[in-house]
């Protein structure tokens, strides 16, 4: 008995030591990247590591709110994050972001001018655009025979339990406001109340409120209609040609995701190095080619496949998006949105 115990203890100790030693073997400097799930070609991390000897530690989030809470709450030390427009605005106003030294990011010049000077970062001081796109409906042409040109189809009883909604409050409430003819940045309580009622009315028709699994579900034909981001739609269409994307006529959300450096960063210069690397033409191309989202990087865009550049899903003319709005930060009014979303889902 005693021998066994001694052997067990010895084994535990030895394996611990081995584990810790192999763990410490990688004592390279590290950079912590916090990104949306499935939103980067992960082989780029290896490229970066080989080039600069900095190891990337990669973590993902599912919604902007999710990411914001983690950074705001403390307890994290991310160096680079990828929030969307309104969240960047909020983080700037709450002093959660470092000002970027653009001298360290020469590749910033490749970013199209139409993607700069947006209201979320009016001085272009805190963010480097990463991807952009719209929110729309993806539908399976073998299952949907109506024309998809309005958000109303998501309230059509015919497709009960075949509709997937995004589990993201700004997006889901936003499209409902659009359907009702309101602004998706409304602070009008009555309009929000109407949106809430519409979402509750829709709930019995909804199959599930999903995040990234929407891609897998739609590709596998598990549902007929889903609300998605345009970049995901491109990818889904690659995998399953029966899937078509439409931006409803009532208008939608036009969004921009950008790279920022949260104040939690302990190594701002390496973060800038990474952002610059991501904006290098070959890397930006490799990434856009892999994930299918629309890049604001002019040179990278020109390298892409003809079909993709001409695909209105990925690269709509900005003039065609007149009804689309960019999300604005709602500051304290966001609580109302939180409340509505909690209530819709709790119902």
């Amino acid at each position, binding site marked *: 008995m005693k021998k066994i115990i001694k052997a067990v203890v010895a084994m535990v100790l030895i394996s611990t030591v081995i584990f810790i030693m192999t763990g410490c073997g990688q004592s390279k400097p590290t950079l912590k990247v916090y990104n949306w799930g499935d939103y980067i070609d992960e082989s780029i991390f290896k490229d970066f590591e080989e080039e600069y000897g900095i190891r990337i530690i990669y973590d993902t989030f599912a919604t902007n*709110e999710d990411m914001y809470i983690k950074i705001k709450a403390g307890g994290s030390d991310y160096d680079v994050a990828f929030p969307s427009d309104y969240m960047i605005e909020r983080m700037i106003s709450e002093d959660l972001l470092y000002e970027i030294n653009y001298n360290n990011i020469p590749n910033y010049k490749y970013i199209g001018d139409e993607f700069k000077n947006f209201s979320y970062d009016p001085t272009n001081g805190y963010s480097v655009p990463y991807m952009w796109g719209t929110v729309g409906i993806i539908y399976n042409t073998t299952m949907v025979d109506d024309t998809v040109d309005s958000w109303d189809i998501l309230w059509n009883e015919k497709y009960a339990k075949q509709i997937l909604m995004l589990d993201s409050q700004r997006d889901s409430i936003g499209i409902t406001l659009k359907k009702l003819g309101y602004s998706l940045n409304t602070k009008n309580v009555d309009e929000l109340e109407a949106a809430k009622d519409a979402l509750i009315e829709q709930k019995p028709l909804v199959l599930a409120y999903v995040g990234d699994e929407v891609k897998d579900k739609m590709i596998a034909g598990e549902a007929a209609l889903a609300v998605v981001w345009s970049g995901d739609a491109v990818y889904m269409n690659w995998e399953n040609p029966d899937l078509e994307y439409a931006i409803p006529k009532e208008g939608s959300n036009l969004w921009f995701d950008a790279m920022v450096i949260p104040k939690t960063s302990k190594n701002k210069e390496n973060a800038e190095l990474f952002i610059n690397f991501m904006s290098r033409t070959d890397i930006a191309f490799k990434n856009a080619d892999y994930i299918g989202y629309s890049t604001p990087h002019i040179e990278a865009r020109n390298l892409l496949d003809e079909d993709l550049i001409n695909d209105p899903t990925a690269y709509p003319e900005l003039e065609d998006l007149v009804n689309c709005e960019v999300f604005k930060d709602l500051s304290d009014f966001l609580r109302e949105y939180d409340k509505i979303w*909690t209530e819709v*889902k709790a119902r």
Partner: protein
Amino acid sequence: MKEGRISSPYIIWMTIFIVFPILLILFFGITIRTDEGFKLSLENFQRFFEPIYLLVLWRSIRLAFISTVICLILGYPMAMILANKDLKMKNTLVLLFVIPMWMNFLLRTYAWMTLLERGGIINSFLSLLRIPPINLLYTEEAVILGMVYNFLPFMVLPIYSVLIKIDKSLLEAAEDLGADSYTVLRKVIFPLSIPGVISGITMVFMPAVTTFVISRLLGGGQFTLIGNLIEQQFLFVGDWNFGSAISIVMIILILISMGFMSKYEKENEGAGLW
């Protein structure tokens, strides 16, 4: 032996990592955040008693209750079969019962996702029988199924461990006195197994009422349970005060049910499982 000094590391540890955090939750629960800092208030609790959140509480209790009942109905006969003294390969069978419990419970839940999907195995099988596909995943039934599947061993094993301890001569005596097997079951075996049943019920009900994973993965975000509500408040909304208040309600709920259960459970001490 010198008294408690040897346990002082433990007491310090628990003070820092158990007592203090719970005090933090209490603090957040009874305050609200204002521009000037924290203000003492019962607003969070008031908010919890709004109809919409009571609905969530009710749904959690209802689903956990249904799952517990199903586990009991399915599990009791199984425990009896396993406890049967004449059973060949008994140890192996009990072991077989334990193995799924050792598998990561997320994997077990995930297994059902692949089965229940519209293009999953069950529906492909149904389509062979020319039955059109039905929505199995993302329903309330799927959530209950996930709970039953994950927690069934927690019901069977405590009952089993009580049943094997029952003195066989008691049963023989009852039979000698003319009781038929049904009467023996009703009047002798079942009353003696009550402690096992109680700890089984506790061990199924408690994790079921507080889960947020099963409802998230198998319910598709539609069936918010109290665990989901807490998770949402902390990780998505950032309203720690409301989230803490819900946690306090949950602690109280669990403590009440434990107090209630412990009345019935004197000698067993809930350690029956291991």
